[in-house]
């Protein structure tokens, strides 16, 4: 059976909508099935992998940073990139213009810089492509 590849375009910034959580669940499920996945992060989604994201305490519950274990999107992206470790099944490309507009340059290792031309190439070479737009 030919290798299958799924390409997903994301646009929402971190902590904005449930669509990001759903997208990361789809990426995780596909990777666990051995499917190669491309993510093209566009617009605010380039901030999902910002290295400087820090977890925080929860003053409402009175929990510390350690007790809260607040999940950051960069850690989700890092764990997804780690699947397949040396030969990652996940290619994550941030839109370069979107990065520059936001100054969102300091991203975790493994995240690439690209352009909509990369998205076009990934989409044309994939089994299917899912575009998750902003609302």
């Amino acid at each position, binding site marked *: 059976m030919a290798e299958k590849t799924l390409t997903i375009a994301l646009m929402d910034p971190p902590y904005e909508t*449930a669509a990001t959580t759903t997208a990361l669940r*789809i990426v995780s*499920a596909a990777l666990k099935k051995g499917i190669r996945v491309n993510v093209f992060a566009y617009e605010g989604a380039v901030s999902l992998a910002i290295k400087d994201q820090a977890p925080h305490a929860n003053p409402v519950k009175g929990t510390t940073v350690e007790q809260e274990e607040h999940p950051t999107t960069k850690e989700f992206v890092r764990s997804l990139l780690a699947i397949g470790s040396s030969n990652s099944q996940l290619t994550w490309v941030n839109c370069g213009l979107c990065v520059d507009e936001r100054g969102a340059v300091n991203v975790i290792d493994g995240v690439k810089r690209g352009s909509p031309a990369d998205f076009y190439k990934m989409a044309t070479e994939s089994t299917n492509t899912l575009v998750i737009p902003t609302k």
Partner: protein
Amino acid sequence: MPNYVFIESRDAFDSPDTSFLAETAVSLKKRGNNVTVFLVQNGVLAARTLSRKSHLPLLLESGVTVLADDLSLAERGIQSEECQSAMKAASIDQFVDLLLQENTRAVWH
């Protein structure tokens, strides 16, 4: 024959344009296509039988397959006995399988 997968993530009470997705899905089904609507996030709020603004009866009567993300249902406390009986809960794994069927077009709303 192409397969169409529509992903409805919006609440019908918040987004009147959910009717457009349902009408498109029904039209494609009438033309002989395989059509699935996958409800996710607040899209699952339409799953309750008592939901008056739901487009699910139209979809189901037209032969469209309707699936609902199991995690989204659970997060919102929607029990299977509250839902349209012809609608099925599905995992995100099943959704990935749908996406990767041959000749499948996916549209997120």
